[in-house]
């Protein structure tokens, strides 16, 4: 099979490329240039491209660089900034998978005659024995990335490979890289959002792109209890940086009213809701309703709920036990009751 493997310059995709090559596939590596600005690995992440290219050379496979930076700006970075302005909490990694890796790249791969695109994600694709495929959590539960892959439908999964999804520990994977002498063998896992440097942080990144607005922080009764300098940086569920006086029970952001400039805080029980509304559902194998497990963050614990469709492309998630409110903009991802297979996902409103 002719496979285009997306190589980020990290150890997971390096090993993915190696495994595909050893399985006898005709493998070409590609590194997407996504972000043209500063990153923790230098401007345009050139150091990561260097790592990917060197690994490809060591594996004796071709290596390409595709410049998708304009699409990345338009589909990931601009919406990320806009979400903060609107007072919602974006997940740029999911948007990148949705629009770049499994759309832009996958389409180009098809045009260029590749049979599949592979990535170093920790997830598994398994046949269900009836002609359909299922998206399964990675064998290494600590590294499982199925949450950020929930948008893959049957057509996408049929042309996708996750060669490292079967590994039960990262150590095994690093051992393979070390045995092959790959320079990425001991490279630390990437953290956080790739276009935000650890130095400037989210606040520094956003401060150069949007105007910050102060907001009053009030309790559930409406009494002023603190203030924030930038409402754009406040997320539902947040505890720190709210200018609250110490002592007393822990208080959390339970609501952000961006236009009124009001952040409401409350105790943990104020954060609990009966249900969560979501929009823009994506289904691995068609719409699903009924009892499911729902995960609301990349490594969050799944919680039991019942889902049903609502008018106008909506999904209602009714929690079995009252659950913490999901920050609007976050993805809610639905798993089957064995907590192994992804059914689909949607965006909390």
């Amino acid at each position, binding site marked *: 099979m002719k496979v285009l493997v997306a190589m980020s310059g990290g150890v997971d995709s390096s090993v993915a490329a190696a495994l595909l090559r050893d399985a006898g596939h005709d493998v070409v590596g590609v590194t997407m*240039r996504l972000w043209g600005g500063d990153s923790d690995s230098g401007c345009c992440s050139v150091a990561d*491209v260097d790592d990917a290219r060197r690994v490809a050379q060591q594996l*004796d496979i071709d290596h*390409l*660089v*595709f*410049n998708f930076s*304009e699409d990345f700006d338009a589909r990931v970075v601009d919406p990320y900034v806009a979400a903060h302005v609107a007072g919602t909490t974006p997940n740029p990694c999911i948007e990148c998978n949705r629009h770049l890796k499994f759309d832009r790249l996958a389409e*180009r791969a*098809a045009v260029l005659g590749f049979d599949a695109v592979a990535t170093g994600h920790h997830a598994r694709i398994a046949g269900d024995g009836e002609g359909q495929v299922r998206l399964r959590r990675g064998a290494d539960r600590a590294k499982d990335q199925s949450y950020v892959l929930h948008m893959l439908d049957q057509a996408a999964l049929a042309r996708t490979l996750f060669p490292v999804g079967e590994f039960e520990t990262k150590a095994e994977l690093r051992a393979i890289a070390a045995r092959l002498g790959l320079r990425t063998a001991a490279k630390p896992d990437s953290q956080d959002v790739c276009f935000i440097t650890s130095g400037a942080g989210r606040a520094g990144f956003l401060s150069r792109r949007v105007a910050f607005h102060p907001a009053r922080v009030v309790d559930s009764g409406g009494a002023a209890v603190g203030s924030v300098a930038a409402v754009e940086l406040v997320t539902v569920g947040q505890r720190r940086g709210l200018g609250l006086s110490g002592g007393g029970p822990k208080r959390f952001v339970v609501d952000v009213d961006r236009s009124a400039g009001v952040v409401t805080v409350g105790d943990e029980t104020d954060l609990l809701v009966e249900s969560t509304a979501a929009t823009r559902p994506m289904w691995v194998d068609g719409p699903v309703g009924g009892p499911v497990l729902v995960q609301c963050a990349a490594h969050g614990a799944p919680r039991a709920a019942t889902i049903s469709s609502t008018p106008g492309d909506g999904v209602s998630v009714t929690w079995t036990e009252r659950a913490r409110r999901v920050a609007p903009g976050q993805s809610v991802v639905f798993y089957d009751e064995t907590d192994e297979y992804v059914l689909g996902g949607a965006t909390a409103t």
Partner: protein
Amino acid sequence: MARDLDRFVYMDHAATTPMRPEAVDAMLPFLADRFANPSGSYRFARDARRALDEARDQVAETIGCRPGEVVFTGGGTESDNTAIAGAVRAAGGRAVCPAAEHHGVLHVVEHLGGTVVPVDRVGRVDLDALGEALDDDVAVVSVMTVNNEVGTRSDLAAVAEVVRLRAPRAVLHTDAVQAPCSVDLREVWPHVDLMALSGHKFGGPKGVGVLAARDGTVFEPLVIGGGQERERRSGTQNVAGIVALAAALAATDAERDEELARVGGLRDRLVGAITAAVPDSRETVPAADKVAGSAHLMFAGIENESLLYLLDQAGVCASAASACASGAMDPSHVLAAMGVERAWAGGALRLSLGRTTTAEDVEVAAEVVAGAVEQLRTRSR
């Protein structure tokens, strides 16, 4: 999967040219037995010094300047940097260049806070806009002899007239890196004060270049140290590279007229074959405005990264715009400056022909390009 590096059609002479045999022959002794430092004070060193002086004479003869006006550098970009940053540092004032210059010029001018002026539809500097950007404060104006992407030839006589009139204090530099295979440098030199050349663009080695600097032109050196090259570029000379550069330049100069006719004919056939076979294709700059080896084409609605991949698979070496540090293709600043619409600029392809290009190469390249564009158009949604 071992790649077959022996069988390919090389259509990227504007990126680099294969070394000429006479250049390889000229440099080998200096990589072996004749290794002396030309600044030494013994007979053995004088041998290297003599080779260096002869090379300087040879280069001067080809440019039409005096030997003392030839400064050997580490390449074209270093020569451009020295000319522009050096002139600004020596005299104070602004640097000015057109928007379609090579990054070796454009980024220096921008870095120094200089002025970038517009170009016309073929990439030639807009002389009215240039005139308006000039004044007594301007230290250096830099205008390329031949555009590296689209092949357009500049009219440096006309540029010089504007500069002399509007910026009497300014020196005029030309990035002539793409010129030697197509342009008799003796016709350019009388109009300029500074000229940059790069060895590997005309059959010499990489990592060696020339800055021709007219006597009396003041510029600060970029590299300071032992005072080689009459204090204009310190560092022990790359003797092997310099003698090879000189040999390549002399040979290129000697066969230029003959080569221009041959390469121009091949280029016309290549462009004719592709534009006839591919709908919605166009030649970016008319042949009359550009050099013989340049075949720059555009295909509407195509992504050039995809096109280059398919050409590579078929063994055709070509390029699109300039690659950034990561190796990704950046949108062409040259085509943007020329006002080319994005739908066309995204499907730009630079095929550049040279000394080793054959009629068979042209046939293969035309067929491969037409087939690749067809594949991309049929398979895209």
